[in-house]
């Protein structure tokens, strides 16, 4: 009888440990805070980009208002810090903090990446140099890694461009032959690049110095509608914003489906046509809740 009991208790435990998808911890997202207006008191309008500096500042691409809004993070709350509009950046759709100071933002209308100071002064455009042909670059999104290298999702030439902080060409990774349309990318601490295919509903990746981008996950079309944003946390977990489905899908470090959080709605904690997202090392997820004209923070609960 004892041996039977031992088997009943031990087998599931051993099975769970042995199988990554069963042994994986369940993740939940708890709504923590929302930002509805900028430092001028103006309501946000269709924000599409978010970035966190890892310390205390959150930058938001307030797309519909043509502004960049900064927020100070205080505990789990957000306090409007500054906001600015530039004639060179009338339609910001992605934003990133530059580790050397300042901000980079992608303008959706001109499809140029703009450099600006934290005070909102224009510092010039990111001008990629030494790029192999074709020389035309159309960035759909970009990310800056821990070393300050800029990873540009160049949809025109079908590649990920890796540039040094000054914009000098480092290397390129061509898109795979079979894919739908890449809308966003993320880079983890090891330099692995992750791409989200909105049409195919799957994630692709290229490790460190890999020369090819390969499928990372299976098709997730059963679990999401049209993913447009991707982020990776320090543990290698992937977060996807499902624009048309209103939700966040989480994948494990092995690409396995780990769950779907939030849902389509208007109230705090729910999402409507969300766009870019960002995950901090301290376990906070920031998401541009485009259709709700706000930015939301979620605490990641293990």
């Amino acid at each position, binding site marked *: 009888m004892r041996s039977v009991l031992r088997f009943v208790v031990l087998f599931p435990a051993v099975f769970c440990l042995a199988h990554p998808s069963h042994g994986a911890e369940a993740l939940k997202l708890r709504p923590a805070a929302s930002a509805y207006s900028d430092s001028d008191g103006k309501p946000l*309008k269709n924000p599409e980009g978010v970035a966190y500096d890892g310390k205390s500042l959150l930058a938001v691409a307030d797309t519909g208002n043509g502004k960049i809004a900064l927020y100070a993070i205080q505990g789990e709350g957000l306090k409007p810090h500054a906001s600015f509009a530039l004639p060179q950046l009338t*339609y910001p759709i992605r934003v990133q903090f530059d580790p050397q100071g300042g901000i980079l933002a992608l303008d959706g209308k001109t499809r140029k990446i703009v450099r600006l100071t934290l005070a909102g002064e224009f510092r010039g455009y990111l001008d990629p140099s030494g790029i192999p042909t074709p020389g035309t670059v159309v960035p759909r999104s970009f990310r800056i890694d821990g070393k300050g290298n800029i990873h540009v999702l160049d949809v*025109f030439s079908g590649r990920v461009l890796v540039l040094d902080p000054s914009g000098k060409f480092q290397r390129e990774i061509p898109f795979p032959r079979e894919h739908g349309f890449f809308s966003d990318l993320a880079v983890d601490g090891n330099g692995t690049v992750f791409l989200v295919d909105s049409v195919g509903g799957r994630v692709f990746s290229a490790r460190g110095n890999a020369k090819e981008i390969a499928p990372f996950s299976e098709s997730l079309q059963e679990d999401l*509608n049209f993913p447009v944003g991707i982020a990776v946390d320090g543990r290698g977990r992937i977060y996807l914003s499902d624009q048309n489905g209103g939700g966040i899908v989480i994948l494990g470090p092995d690409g396995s489906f780990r769950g779907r959080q939030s849902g389509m709605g*208007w109230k705090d904690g729910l999402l409507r046509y969300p766009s870019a997202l960002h995950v901090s090392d301290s376990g906070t997820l920031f998401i541009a809740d485009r*259709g*709700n004209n*706000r930015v939301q923070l979620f605490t990641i609960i293990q």
Partner: protein
Amino acid sequence: MRLRHRIVLLLLGLAVLSSGSLALSQDQFRLKPGAKGKVCLTCHTAFQEKMKLPFVHTPVKAGNCSDCHNPHTSSHGKLLADDPSRICRKCHDGILPGKAKSVHKAVGEGNCVKCHDPHAAKFKNNLLQDGNSLCFNCHKGIAEGVKGARFKHNPVEKGCLSCHKAHASEGADFLLKAGVPSLCTSCHRTDGPSFAKQHVNYPVARSRCTSCHDPHGSSQAGILWQNVHSPVAKKMCSQCHPDPGSPDALKAKRPGFELCRGCHSDMMNETFGRNRIHWPLVDHVSCQNCHAPHASRQDALLRGPMKTVCNSCHQDVARRQETSVTKHKPIEGGECTKCHRPHSSDLVSLLDNTNVINLCGSCHEWMKHSSHPIGDNVVDQRNRNLSLDCLSCHRSHGSEFKDFTYFNAKMDLCVQCHTGFKR
């Protein structure tokens, strides 16, 4: 000798066994000796006439009605002995090759009676109709095209089966007997001066003929598709391609939209002048994601009907509409541009109007004067940064509720805001 004897004996034994099992299957209903189909015909008298037709299905001819029907009970219509989608393949298993590249929809669904009469017919192979008329019953669009074409393609006149297989094709799409261009070049010589002249000396012998030509005939000379890109019609291929003698003669002169911008500059400038672009327009495939570069059956040289083109990427919208309780007519009819701009817009979702209420009102006119309070001044109780418009309650691409509301109208929709009435 002994071995031969053994083989003969073995074959005889097998023959006896198989005939025995056949007899057993026929005798499972313990019919009177010699009865078989005759018993059925005592009631189904109309079949007497049917059996006089020139082509009678073998089991019918043999009177083995019970091969397909159970005379007592069945879970299937017409007392069939198995599911209608499976029953034919019990005997005709070889109809579908193991690795078919394309399968006739009716065959894939097991809907054999779309083309064949299971009992008897006037036409060979028990077909319901003869020649192309059978195919044109379903393929009406092609039928109209063939009928109206000024320039006929001879094999079409001879019969669809000149180029297509009826059930499945192992090697080609569209049930073709072979892929394009090898199917075409089995009739059309590509090494003669006429071919070179017609194609302005471009080395197109191995190109996909159907990127320019309508294989079913057309009213355009050279059976080009109905809508021809102007440079193709004028045989000015060098507007987009290098000279025919160039090693890259079939490549485009410039990548992506940069090529098209040369002629379509006004449209491009207008497109790029708006805040939001349809991103595929600026990717490495660019305009050709949606438009055929040479010729097309569709207006605006679209690669297919708008519904097909849009849904090829926006499959989630197609799925949503398919499962929606109430259908939104523009989506069902493939009129995506009723609400969205295909190239660019200043608005999210590439909408065609700054005001959602006016956009919906362009079809639903009554909304403007008789509705729940909506407009810029009516704040959404659920979110202070939003005002109420049609999309506050309706999910335009469809939902599981009537009138594609986000929530069950009776229980959950109104109390989203009118919380005091929540039960």
